[in-house]
Every structure is written in structure tokens, then in C-alpha cells.
């Protein structure tokens, strides 16, 4: 089902409606496609191009720039181990080495049961080093034993993390009638609360 399904097409329309220019919705829509399929499929990119009235090449151009978008299936649980400077100082390299040994795979590859590990750049939890994210959910001050326990929890299904692709569990929703409306570039109107200019400025 790599094109967006009907329910996601409705969500996509809502997201597109929040931007003065529709292409601004591209990154949120790529997340939506990844949420649906676990990765961004070629057909999904084609579909997004149709929805935004841009070319598939433009969609691919944006998609391929950003680390989080995966263009092939990558497994259900991605463990991103931070190797930024703060984590490096507190043993990130050893943790990554341990993770590779424990799972029997190198960084960037997926186990047969859908778990992958990757060393990633700083994830903004520097005081909790070494840290990692499972599908973008944090685990702080991770020991080798902590990592093993995490993998065990993933394997027996007890880890409370949605599968890869699902990002925020809460969506913004702007109730009808409460939206201020997009600030369209073409309007050139001052905002309603803006005071009238007192007098014409001299020299202009």
C-alpha cells in the first residue's frame, strides 16, 4: 500500500491547508508516508508529488537530504546510539561495539527480526550520556546491561514504543472556526491589530 491510504489523504489535506504555499507541507507529508509504511516508498513519493503539484524529482530531492527518511524497509525497531561528543567522552564507542556484538550485526544493518543499530549525531540529551533512542524515544545513561535488557524487551514485545515510522502520537488539530487563516503572500495587508500609520513618513 505504498500510496497514501484514504485516511492519510484526508490528514494530508489538513496539513497542506496550514501553509500559504503547499510545498511547505512536503516534510510533514514524507513523515506521514513513513508512518504508514515504515519507510518512504517510491509510489508514496509519486503520490505526494501529485498532492502538492510538484515533480517526483523534487520530492526525492527533499526526501534524500534528510537523515530520518528511509527509502527502503528498515525494520520495526531502530536503535540510534548517540556518538556525539558528550556521549563519546562517556563511552559511546564501547556501547556501539557492545551493541554490534550483542545483535550480531554491524551498524546500519537490520537483524532478521527487524532490529537495527546505528551511531547517530548528538540527540540533545548530553547530560544523560551515553544515551540512545528507540524509534526516537529516549533511553538515558545506557549501560551494556541496559542495552541487553532493551533488546530483550523489544523481542518479547514489552517495549512501549510504536513501530518505526510513527513519530509523535499526538497531532496538532486546528478546530474549524478557530483558525486565523494563512497569511497569504499576495495579500500585502497589515495585520488587523496593527495601528494605522500616524502620518506619511517624509522622504519616502
Amino acid at each position, binding site marked *: 500500500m505504498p500510496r497514501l491510504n484514504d485516511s492519510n489523504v484526508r490528514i494530508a489535506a489538513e496539513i497542506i491547508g496550514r501553509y500559504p504555499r503547499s510545498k511547505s507541507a512536503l516534510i510533514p507529508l514524507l513523515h506521514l508516508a513513513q508512518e504508514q509504511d515504515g519507510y518512504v516508498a517510491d509510489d508514496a513519493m509519486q503520490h505526494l508529488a501529485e498532492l502538492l503539484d510538484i515533480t517526483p524529482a523534487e520530492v526525492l530531492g*527533499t526526501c534524500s537530504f*534528510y537523515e530520518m527518511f528511509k527509502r527502503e524497509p528498515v525494520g520495526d525497531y531502530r536503535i540510534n546510539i548517540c556518538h556525539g561528543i558528550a556521549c563519546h567522552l562517556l563511552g559511546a564507542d564501547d556501547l556501539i561495539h557492545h551493541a554490534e556484538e550483542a545483535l550480531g550485526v554491524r551498524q546500519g544493518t537490520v537483524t532478521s527480526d527487524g532490529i537495527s543499530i546505528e551511531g547517530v549525531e548528538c540527540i540533545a540529551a548530553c547530560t544523560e550520556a551515553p544515551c540512545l533512542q528507540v524509534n526516537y524515544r529516549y533511553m538515558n545513561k545506557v549501560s551494556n546491561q541496559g542495552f541487553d535488557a532493551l533488546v530483550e524487551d523489544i523481542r518479547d514485545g514489552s517495549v512501549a514504543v510504536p513501530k518505526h515510522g510513527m513519530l509523535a502520537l499526538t497531532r496538532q488539530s486546528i478546530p474549524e472556526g478557530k483558525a486565523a487563516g494563512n497569511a497569504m503572500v499576495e495579500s500585502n495587508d497589515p495585520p488587523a491589530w496593527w495601528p494605522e500609520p500616524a502620518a506619511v513618513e517624509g522622504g519616502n
Partner: protein
Amino acid sequence: MPFEKIVTKRFDNVDAHNLDTYLETGGYVALRKALDMTPEEVHNEVKAASVLGRGGAGFPAGVKWGFCPPGVWPRYLVVNGDESEPGTYKDRQLLERDPHQIIEGCLLACYAVGLTQCFLYIRGEMAHAQERVAAALNDAYDAGYVGKNILGTDFSVDIVLHWGAGAYIVGEETALIESLEGNRGMPRLKPPFFPAAVGLYGQPTIVNNVETLANLPWIIDRGADAYTAMGAENSKGTRVFAVSGHVNNPGVFEVEFGTTTFRDIIEGADYAGGVRDGKKLKAFIPGGASAPWFHEEHLDLPLEKVTIDKAGSMLGSGAIVVMDEDTDMVKACHNLVRFFARESCGKCTPCREGTTWLERILSRIIAGHGRPSDMALLTEICENISPGIAWPPKQTTICPLGPSAVSPIASSIERFRNEFEDYITLSDRRVIPVGSA
């Protein structure tokens, strides 16, 4: 001088992200107050508080707001929540723990400058922050604090939550705008693309950091005088610093800006509690991966912008990373350079090629295949990215990412050249092409 917490004041309250709790603790009071003032009065108050931008460059927010050309509409607000500078851990906490404070800050900025739509750009990897902000926005819309005719006035503005997707460079303000337009996040050339004049969709656009905006409700509520009563001459109010690395008590601390010293925050019992395991300090990074390193003799400098600039580094994004005497400085340097090499957007040749070669040469040195000429080679490549290797850095690139990779190399070679030479002297001297090590 009286010091009280401003932006982290609700961090002890685990319910602070809820609208009810926010309202019970003084939330949206500043917004009501501002709506009884003219936009100009609100703007002047922020200008008088001289709140410095907290994203890295440290430019006064009130002055930046004044750069919008008059009579050109619409104007936009883009909130920079793409926190990714290694060592930095403050914006994520502000977003997760007190999201309404950021929303209120956005509203105040929009009201003061006449910004009619706000895009809150949050780093893609921060799923929980996105959830908290989405929930807060939904509640704020329901209660009439955001959207059409806010609190029954003429003031109407939508705040749109936008997600990033993993790219450090998008923290640069013009790259942020490119990304928000749905493009690859590559910086634009200034001039002409100063966002206040030519920003989102070519319109005047204010780009503010999350922590900068978090200061605004307090400033409007209590007044610029109360704000400037705290801090030093050129650095007013408070600032949030994350202290990480080899310390006993790594943490995020809000301190009085400009008066607290590095020694206070690194060694103080109420703060990071000193270098761990009784070890000695070898070096520390004062303001994120892009900042030149400091040493023992800099510990008594105050956390104040002008002083630190003069001393040859920067407070940047409030990230202090401490390295103890056992740290391998070649590996630390390589770690930082690898970051910039991976995060270079590829637009400018000196950065795209230069950071990549720097990383490969450092890899080769660490792998035991370094050559004596590598020291000069590293310096030569740095020169091509940042002529003169000085501070503040000159650049042959559009944005400062490339020159940022020069900082750790210049810092580590200046002080710890012997460690590089040890790696090279002990190498096996086989000639291995760069890149295959």
C-alpha cells in the same frame, strides 16, 4: 543582585505542560497585559530588556525585530527548535516541560512585530517534544489563546507545528527557511537573504530560538527593568547552560547571565560538582561543538558574551562539555570533525570537501597510518575553509558550518600537538591512500 529563574521556573512541576497548571502559575498573564499595550510598546519593552538571542549568535532579539522593512506584509515568525549542536540540551527541555511558555512567547513576538503566521519548527528526532507542543497547541486553540481573535481582540495568529527530519544545518536560519519551504536544507547567501527582509516565501521573517522566546512572557509580565537588574552589562537576565562530559553531576542549569563563572558552574556543588573521580581538567568546550576550546586558565571567566568573545571563543548555544586529563584529544577532535563532515549540506566546496578530508586524515592518524606531513596538511585545509584560522572566523563558505570544523582542530593542535605526533610517530609508516584507512 536578586536572581530568580525565568525560563526553567516551572521545571520542578511535572504538570507544567498542562494548560491548567500553566494558568495557575502565571501563564498567559503577559499575553493579556500585552494586548492592553500597543505593539510598539511591547517591542520597546523587549528592546529595553536587551535579550540576546540564545541560538548561538547572541544577537539582541529586540533589535533583530526592528529590521523588518516597514509596510511590507505579511511578516512571518519561524521558531528555531532544531536544537542539534553537540552538547546542547535546553530547547528540548523547554519544549517538553513548559510548552505553553514557548507558545506565549511566540504570541508576544507576533503581536509586537505584526507577524501574522507562526511556524514552530521542531527537530524531527524529538518525538516527545512534538507531542507535548501539539497537545499544548490544541488546548490553547480550544481556550482561545491561539488562532482567530485571541481573547476576543483583533489579534489573530495561527501557530503551525512543523517537524524537521534530521539535519543539523537546518538550525542555520536561512537553511531553516529553505527546509520550511519544503526544500533541501541548504543555507542562502546573505545578502540578499537576511530573513528579516527576505525570508519565508520572500517575505520579512523573524527567526528566533526557543529559549529566546521563552524569556518574553517574564519580560512583559515583570518589565524590562526587572530583567536588566539581573546579569552583567552586556548580558542581561539569565541563561540556560547544559554541562556534560566528565563531571560529577552533569545537568542543565539556569544561572544569572554574565556574573556566574565557568568555575562556578563546572565545579560548584549546586551545579556540575567538579571533574569526576577527582581527575584534573584537561580542556572544556564553552559553547557547543563549533566553539574553540578553553582550559584551566579560563575557568574564572564569567559566562558573559563580550568577555568570552574577546577570550577567543563563544557561549554559543549554552553547551559546556568537560574533558578530563585522561581524554584522548585526537579522538575528541576527530569526533567533532566527523560531526561537521557528516552534517555538511554540500553546497559550498570548501566545507563539503574540506570537512570530509579533515575527517579522513584524522581517521588515518588514529588508525596508525598518519604521516608527519599530515599536521601541515590539516592546517592547510583549515586555511582553505577559514583563512587565517582566527576567531571570530573568516569563511570561504556561505554559512559558518565549515569554519566550525576548524575550531576543534585549531584548539587541539595548538595545545595538544604532541598527542597527534605520538599517533604519527608510532604509526607503521606504510603509505595508505587517504580514505581507505
